[in-house]
Protein backbone atom coordinates (compact mmCIF):
# COMPACT_ATOMS: atom_id res chain seq x y z
CA UNK A 1 0.00 0.00 0.00
CA UNK A 2 1.81 3.07 -1.11
CA UNK A 3 1.21 6.48 0.33
CA UNK A 4 -0.80 8.89 -1.68
CA UNK A 5 0.97 12.17 -1.93
CA UNK A 6 -1.01 15.12 -3.12
CA UNK A 7 1.05 17.90 -4.56
CA UNK A 8 -0.24 21.14 -3.14
CA UNK A 9 2.89 23.06 -3.31
CA UNK A 10 3.11 24.11 -6.88
CA UNK A 11 3.31 27.82 -7.07
CA UNK A 12 5.01 28.08 -3.72
CA UNK A 13 8.68 28.76 -3.68
CA UNK A 14 10.91 26.04 -2.47
CA UNK A 15 13.06 27.37 0.32
CA UNK A 16 15.65 24.71 -0.26
CA UNK A 17 16.70 26.47 -3.34
CA UNK A 18 19.88 28.17 -2.32
CA UNK A 19 23.56 28.20 -3.02
CA UNK A 20 25.69 25.87 -1.05
CA UNK A 21 28.50 28.19 -0.22
CA UNK A 22 28.15 31.18 2.00
CA UNK A 23 27.88 34.25 -0.11
CA UNK A 24 27.28 37.80 0.88
CA UNK A 25 25.61 40.51 -1.04
CA UNK A 26 27.48 43.78 -1.07
CA UNK A 27 28.32 44.93 2.41
CA UNK A 28 25.43 43.33 4.13
CA UNK A 29 26.31 41.03 6.93
CA UNK A 30 25.91 37.48 5.83
CA UNK A 31 23.24 35.80 7.87
CA UNK A 32 21.87 39.19 8.87
CA UNK A 33 18.27 38.32 8.14
CA UNK A 34 18.43 35.05 10.01
CA UNK A 35 20.03 36.81 12.91
CA UNK A 36 17.45 39.59 12.91
CA UNK A 37 14.71 36.99 12.97
CA UNK A 38 16.27 35.03 15.81
CA UNK A 39 16.97 38.15 17.82
CA UNK A 40 13.45 39.35 17.36
CA UNK A 41 11.86 36.07 18.41
CA UNK A 42 14.13 35.37 21.36
CA UNK A 43 13.86 38.89 22.78
CA UNK A 44 10.13 38.74 22.41
CA UNK A 45 9.91 35.48 24.27
CA UNK A 46 12.50 36.12 26.94
CA UNK A 47 11.57 37.55 30.28
CA UNK A 48 14.96 39.18 30.28
CA UNK A 49 15.34 40.37 26.70
CA UNK A 50 18.37 42.47 27.53
CA UNK A 51 20.25 39.36 28.53
CA UNK A 52 19.70 37.85 25.09
CA UNK A 53 22.64 37.78 22.76
CA UNK A 54 22.72 36.08 19.41
CA UNK A 55 26.20 35.10 18.39
CA UNK A 56 26.91 34.42 14.76
CA UNK A 57 29.24 31.48 14.34
CA UNK A 58 30.14 29.22 11.49
CA UNK A 59 30.45 25.50 11.35
CA UNK A 60 31.24 23.53 8.23
CA UNK A 61 29.99 26.10 5.83
CA UNK A 62 26.84 26.68 7.80
CA UNK A 63 25.95 29.71 9.84
CA UNK A 64 25.07 28.80 13.38
CA UNK A 65 23.27 31.41 15.41
CA UNK A 66 24.06 30.73 19.01
CA UNK A 67 21.52 32.16 21.41
CA UNK A 68 22.75 33.17 24.83
CA UNK A 69 20.17 34.14 27.42
CA UNK A 70 19.63 34.26 31.13
CA UNK A 71 19.46 30.76 32.61
CA UNK A 72 15.87 31.38 33.60
CA UNK A 73 14.92 31.97 29.99
CA UNK A 74 16.50 28.86 28.52
CA UNK A 75 13.47 26.69 28.96
CA UNK A 76 11.28 29.39 27.50
CA UNK A 77 13.44 29.64 24.40
CA UNK A 78 13.60 25.91 23.93
CA UNK A 79 9.94 25.34 24.61
CA UNK A 80 8.10 22.21 25.50
CA UNK A 81 9.65 19.30 23.70
CA UNK A 82 11.88 21.77 21.93
CA UNK A 83 9.00 23.19 19.97
CA UNK A 84 10.13 26.78 20.15
CA UNK A 85 13.70 26.14 19.13
CA UNK A 86 12.49 23.86 16.35
CA UNK A 87 10.25 26.61 15.04
CA UNK A 88 13.13 29.08 15.22
CA UNK A 89 15.30 26.63 13.33
CA UNK A 90 12.78 26.48 10.54
CA UNK A 91 12.58 30.27 10.35
CA UNK A 92 16.34 30.55 10.42
CA UNK A 93 16.60 28.14 7.57
CA UNK A 94 14.10 30.15 5.57
CA UNK A 95 15.76 33.46 6.39
CA UNK A 96 19.15 32.03 5.46
CA UNK A 97 17.76 30.67 2.22
CA UNK A 98 16.58 34.16 1.33
CA UNK A 99 20.21 35.25 1.50
CA UNK A 100 21.60 32.16 -0.10
CA UNK A 101 23.14 30.79 3.05
CA UNK A 102 22.54 27.74 5.14
CA UNK A 103 21.72 28.77 8.67
CA UNK A 104 20.57 27.17 11.85
CA UNK A 105 20.12 28.11 15.47
CA UNK A 106 21.17 26.64 18.78
CA UNK A 107 20.42 27.71 22.30
CA UNK A 108 23.68 27.80 24.23
CA UNK A 109 23.58 25.64 27.31
Amino acid at each position, binding site marked *: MSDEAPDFDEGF*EDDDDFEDEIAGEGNRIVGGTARAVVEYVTRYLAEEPDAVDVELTERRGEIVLLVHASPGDMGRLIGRRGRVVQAMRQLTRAAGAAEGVRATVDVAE
Partner: protein
Amino acid sequence: MEWVETTGRTVEEALDVALDTLGVDEDEADFEVLEEPRGGLWGRREARIRARVRPISRAKPGEGRARPRRTREGGSGRSRRPTSEAVPAATGGGGTSDRRRRSGGRGGGRAAAGSVRSTPAATKETMVSEVPVEEQAREAETFTRGLIEAFGSPGTVAVEIDEDGGVLVDVTGPDLGLLVGQRGATLQAIEELVRTVVQRRTEGHGTRINVDVAGYRAKRREALAGFAEELAHTVQETGQERALEPMPASDRKVVHDTIAAMDGVSTISEGEEPRRRVVVRPG
Protein backbone atom coordinates in the same frame (compact mmCIF):
# COMPACT_ATOMS: atom_id res chain seq x y z
CA MET B 1 -13.93 29.80 22.07
CA GLU B 2 -12.96 27.85 25.10
CA TRP B 3 -13.59 24.20 24.41
CA VAL B 4 -12.97 22.34 21.22
CA GLU B 5 -14.82 19.17 20.51
CA THR B 6 -13.14 16.48 18.48
CA THR B 7 -13.68 12.90 17.47
CA GLY B 8 -11.40 10.02 16.74
CA ARG B 9 -11.28 6.29 16.57
CA THR B 10 -9.95 6.26 20.09
CA VAL B 11 -10.00 8.80 22.85
CA GLU B 12 -6.32 9.27 22.29
CA GLU B 13 -6.81 10.01 18.65
CA ALA B 14 -9.51 12.53 19.39
CA LEU B 15 -7.20 14.12 21.90
CA ASP B 16 -4.41 14.32 19.36
CA VAL B 17 -6.68 16.26 17.07
CA ALA B 18 -7.78 18.50 19.90
CA LEU B 19 -4.25 19.25 21.03
CA ASP B 20 -3.26 20.17 17.53
CA THR B 21 -6.24 22.40 17.20
CA LEU B 22 -5.43 24.11 20.45
CA GLY B 23 -1.75 24.15 19.72
CA VAL B 24 -0.70 22.98 23.14
CA ASP B 25 0.80 19.93 24.69
CA GLU B 26 -1.20 17.46 26.61
CA ASP B 27 -0.03 18.62 29.98
CA GLU B 28 -1.45 22.03 29.28
CA ALA B 29 -4.90 20.79 28.44
CA ASP B 30 -8.01 19.67 30.21
CA PHE B 31 -10.21 17.24 28.46
CA GLU B 32 -13.37 15.33 29.00
CA VAL B 33 -14.54 12.20 27.32
CA LEU B 34 -17.99 12.88 25.98
CA GLU B 35 -18.42 9.52 24.30
CA GLU B 36 -16.33 6.42 24.50
CA PRO B 37 -15.63 4.84 21.15
CA ARG B 38 -17.60 1.75 20.37
CA GLY B 39 -17.16 -0.79 17.67
CA GLY B 40 -20.07 -2.98 16.94
CA LEU B 41 -22.39 -4.71 14.61
CA TRP B 42 -24.16 -1.53 13.75
CA GLY B 43 -21.05 0.32 12.91
CA ARG B 44 -18.48 2.19 14.80
CA ARG B 45 -19.08 5.11 17.00
CA GLU B 46 -16.19 7.44 17.31
CA ALA B 47 -14.77 8.66 20.54
CA ARG B 48 -15.84 12.19 21.21
CA ILE B 49 -14.04 14.46 23.60
CA ARG B 50 -13.85 18.08 24.38
CA ALA B 51 -10.71 19.83 25.39
CA ARG B 52 -9.47 23.23 26.27
CA VAL B 53 -6.25 24.78 27.28
CA ARG B 54 -6.07 24.52 31.03
CA PRO B 55 -6.52 27.97 32.47
CA ILE B 56 -3.69 28.85 34.71
CA SER B 57 -3.65 31.55 37.26
CA ARG B 58 -0.64 33.68 37.35
CA ALA B 59 0.32 37.27 37.59
CA LYS B 60 -1.29 39.48 35.03
CA PRO B 61 1.05 40.48 32.26
CA GLY B 62 2.53 43.91 32.61
CA GLU B 63 0.74 46.92 31.28
CA GLY B 64 2.68 47.39 28.10
CA ARG B 65 1.69 44.41 26.06
CA ALA B 66 4.32 45.14 23.46
CA ARG B 67 7.03 44.66 26.03
CA PRO B 68 8.01 41.39 27.53
CA ARG B 69 7.17 40.92 31.16
CA ARG B 70 10.11 41.47 33.37
CA THR B 71 8.88 39.55 36.31
CA ARG B 72 10.26 36.12 36.63
CA GLU B 73 8.34 33.45 38.33
CA GLY B 74 10.95 31.19 39.70
CA GLY B 75 14.28 30.46 38.19
CA SER B 76 13.79 27.07 36.65
CA GLY B 77 12.81 28.41 33.29
CA ARG B 78 10.49 25.53 32.78
CA SER B 79 7.10 24.95 34.32
CA ARG B 80 5.49 28.28 34.83
CA ARG B 81 3.01 26.93 37.25
CA PRO B 82 2.75 24.21 39.79
CA THR B 83 1.88 21.10 37.86
CA SER B 84 -1.36 21.06 39.74
CA GLU B 85 -1.60 17.35 40.11
CA ALA B 86 -4.45 16.54 37.88
CA VAL B 87 -6.82 13.98 39.21
CA PRO B 88 -7.24 11.45 36.48
CA ALA B 89 -10.66 10.27 37.47
CA ALA B 90 -11.38 6.75 36.43
CA THR B 91 -12.95 6.63 33.04
CA GLY B 92 -16.44 5.35 33.27
CA GLY B 93 -16.42 2.53 30.79
CA GLY B 94 -13.04 1.37 31.97
CA GLY B 95 -10.91 0.70 28.98
CA THR B 96 -9.76 4.03 27.80
CA SER B 97 -7.20 4.73 30.42
CA ASP B 98 -4.74 3.63 27.83
CA ARG B 99 -2.60 6.40 29.04
CA ARG B 100 -0.52 8.20 26.62
CA ARG B 101 2.12 6.72 24.46
CA ARG B 102 3.75 10.11 24.49
CA SER B 103 6.64 9.78 26.81
CA GLY B 104 7.19 12.95 28.68
CA GLY B 105 10.16 14.36 26.80
CA ARG B 106 12.55 16.39 28.85
CA GLY B 107 11.89 16.87 32.48
CA GLY B 108 10.24 14.34 34.66
CA GLY B 109 7.10 15.48 36.31
CA ARG B 110 4.72 15.69 33.44
CA ALA B 111 3.14 12.35 33.93
CA ALA B 112 -0.19 13.65 35.11
CA ALA B 113 -2.09 14.43 31.98
CA GLY B 114 -5.39 16.11 31.42
CA SER B 115 -7.96 15.46 34.04
CA VAL B 116 -10.26 13.00 32.43
CA ARG B 117 -13.79 13.12 33.57
CA SER B 118 -16.12 10.67 32.09
CA THR B 119 -19.33 12.36 33.04
CA PRO B 120 -20.25 14.39 30.03
CA ALA B 121 -21.04 17.96 30.77
CA ALA B 122 -21.20 17.22 34.46
CA THR B 123 -19.29 20.32 35.24
CA LYS B 124 -20.09 23.56 33.60
CA GLU B 125 -16.86 25.28 34.24
CA THR B 126 -16.81 28.91 34.95
CA MET B 127 -14.91 30.26 32.08
CA VAL B 128 -12.18 32.36 33.47
CA SER B 129 -12.20 34.56 30.47
CA GLU B 130 -8.87 36.12 31.12
CA VAL B 131 -7.72 38.48 28.45
CA PRO B 132 -10.31 39.40 25.85
CA VAL B 133 -9.80 37.75 22.51
CA GLU B 134 -9.37 41.19 20.95
CA GLU B 135 -6.25 41.69 22.99
CA GLN B 136 -4.92 38.29 22.05
CA ALA B 137 -5.56 39.18 18.44
CA ARG B 138 -3.64 42.42 18.85
CA GLU B 139 -0.77 40.58 20.48
CA ALA B 140 -0.71 38.07 17.63
CA GLU B 141 -0.77 40.88 15.11
CA THR B 142 2.00 42.84 16.79
CA PHE B 143 4.28 39.85 17.04
CA THR B 144 3.63 38.66 13.51
CA ARG B 145 4.15 42.10 12.04
CA GLY B 146 7.52 42.41 13.77
CA LEU B 147 8.49 38.97 12.60
CA ILE B 148 7.64 39.73 9.00
CA GLU B 149 9.67 42.92 9.30
CA ALA B 150 12.63 41.03 10.71
CA PHE B 151 12.44 38.89 7.60
CA GLY B 152 12.62 42.04 5.54
CA SER B 153 9.41 41.01 3.87
CA PRO B 154 6.91 43.58 2.72
CA GLY B 155 3.93 41.45 3.71
CA THR B 156 0.82 42.93 5.24
CA VAL B 157 -0.58 41.48 8.45
CA ALA B 158 -4.28 41.44 9.22
CA VAL B 159 -6.10 39.70 12.03
CA GLU B 160 -9.67 38.72 12.33
CA ILE B 161 -11.69 37.00 14.98
CA ASP B 162 -13.87 34.30 13.51
CA GLU B 163 -17.36 33.37 14.58
CA ASP B 164 -16.02 30.78 17.01
CA GLY B 165 -13.87 33.36 18.70
CA GLY B 166 -10.68 32.02 17.17
CA VAL B 167 -7.98 34.35 15.95
CA LEU B 168 -6.89 34.23 12.34
CA VAL B 169 -3.69 35.99 11.39
CA ASP B 170 -3.46 36.52 7.68
CA VAL B 171 -0.25 37.57 6.01
CA THR B 172 -0.61 38.74 2.45
CA GLY B 173 1.65 40.31 -0.13
CA PRO B 174 3.91 39.41 -3.01
CA ASP B 175 6.74 36.91 -2.79
CA LEU B 176 5.76 35.24 0.43
CA GLY B 177 6.80 31.79 -0.69
CA LEU B 178 9.70 31.88 1.70
CA LEU B 179 7.37 32.38 4.63
CA VAL B 180 5.37 29.37 3.55
CA GLY B 181 8.24 26.99 2.98
CA GLN B 182 8.20 23.44 1.78
CA ARG B 183 4.85 21.94 2.52
CA GLY B 184 4.07 24.92 4.69
CA ALA B 185 6.86 24.15 7.14
CA THR B 186 7.84 27.77 7.65
CA LEU B 187 4.25 28.83 8.01
CA GLN B 188 3.79 26.11 10.58
CA ALA B 189 6.78 27.43 12.50
CA ILE B 190 5.42 30.97 12.42
CA GLU B 191 2.11 29.70 13.74
CA GLU B 192 3.82 27.82 16.53
CA LEU B 193 5.64 30.95 17.62
CA VAL B 194 2.59 33.19 17.38
CA ARG B 195 0.68 30.75 19.58
CA THR B 196 3.50 30.57 22.07
CA VAL B 197 3.76 34.33 22.28
CA VAL B 198 0.06 34.87 22.72
CA GLN B 199 -0.29 32.13 25.27
CA ARG B 200 2.62 33.34 27.30
CA ARG B 201 1.99 37.02 27.17
CA THR B 202 -1.71 37.21 27.53
CA GLU B 203 -3.58 34.63 29.46
CA GLY B 204 -4.88 33.62 26.14
CA HIS B 205 -5.34 30.00 26.86
CA GLY B 206 -8.11 28.28 25.05
CA THR B 207 -8.16 30.54 22.07
CA ARG B 208 -7.52 28.94 18.74
CA ILE B 209 -4.93 30.81 16.78
CA ASN B 210 -4.30 30.13 13.15
CA VAL B 211 -1.91 31.76 10.77
CA ASP B 212 -2.13 31.80 7.03
CA VAL B 213 0.36 33.19 4.58
CA ALA B 214 -0.56 34.03 1.02
CA GLY B 215 -3.72 31.98 1.32
CA TYR B 216 -1.66 28.80 1.54
CA ARG B 217 -3.71 27.14 4.23
CA ALA B 218 -6.99 27.96 2.60
CA LYS B 219 -5.85 26.62 -0.75
CA ARG B 220 -4.31 23.59 0.79
CA ARG B 221 -7.43 22.70 2.73
CA GLU B 222 -9.44 22.95 -0.41
CA ALA B 223 -6.98 20.90 -2.41
CA LEU B 224 -6.72 18.31 0.33
CA ALA B 225 -10.48 17.92 0.57
CA GLY B 226 -10.66 17.50 -3.20
CA PHE B 227 -7.88 14.97 -3.16
CA ALA B 228 -9.48 13.02 -0.31
CA GLU B 229 -12.76 12.90 -2.14
CA GLU B 230 -11.13 11.59 -5.27
CA LEU B 231 -9.28 8.94 -3.34
CA ALA B 232 -12.49 7.94 -1.59
CA HIS B 233 -14.15 7.49 -4.96
CA THR B 234 -11.33 5.20 -6.00
CA VAL B 235 -11.82 3.18 -2.83
CA GLN B 236 -15.54 3.00 -3.49
CA GLU B 237 -14.90 1.69 -6.98
CA THR B 238 -12.10 -0.73 -6.26
CA GLY B 239 -13.10 -1.81 -2.79
CA GLN B 240 -9.48 -1.58 -1.78
CA GLU B 241 -8.17 0.54 1.04
CA ARG B 242 -5.71 3.30 0.36
CA ALA B 243 -3.47 5.24 2.67
CA LEU B 244 -2.64 8.89 2.45
CA GLU B 245 0.81 10.11 3.25
CA PRO B 246 1.46 11.11 6.86
CA MET B 247 0.14 14.53 7.71
CA PRO B 248 -0.54 16.66 10.77
CA ALA B 249 -3.70 16.18 12.79
CA SER B 250 -5.35 19.30 11.44
CA ASP B 251 -4.94 17.99 7.90
CA ARG B 252 -6.10 14.54 8.84
CA LYS B 253 -9.21 16.12 10.20
CA VAL B 254 -9.94 17.70 6.82
CA VAL B 255 -9.67 14.24 5.28
CA HIS B 256 -11.81 12.59 7.96
CA ASP B 257 -14.46 15.27 7.71
CA THR B 258 -14.59 15.20 3.93
CA ILE B 259 -14.93 11.46 3.72
CA ALA B 260 -17.34 11.21 6.65
CA ALA B 261 -19.91 12.85 4.40
CA MET B 262 -19.55 10.09 1.80
CA ASP B 263 -21.24 6.71 1.67
CA GLY B 264 -19.50 3.38 1.49
CA VAL B 265 -16.15 4.61 2.73
CA SER B 266 -14.69 5.29 6.11
CA THR B 267 -11.42 6.55 7.45
CA ILE B 268 -9.12 5.69 10.27
CA SER B 269 -5.77 7.04 11.29
CA GLU B 270 -2.86 4.78 11.94
CA GLY B 271 0.77 5.04 12.88
CA GLU B 272 2.55 7.18 15.39
CA GLU B 273 3.13 10.88 15.13
CA PRO B 274 4.67 12.37 13.15
CA ARG B 275 4.13 9.51 10.71
CA ARG B 276 0.45 9.20 11.46
CA ARG B 277 -1.68 8.89 8.37
CA VAL B 278 -5.22 8.41 7.27
CA VAL B 279 -6.34 5.17 5.70
CA VAL B 280 -9.47 5.18 3.58
CA ARG B 281 -11.39 1.94 3.74
CA PRO B 282 -14.37 0.58 1.92
CA GLY B 283 -17.48 0.21 4.05
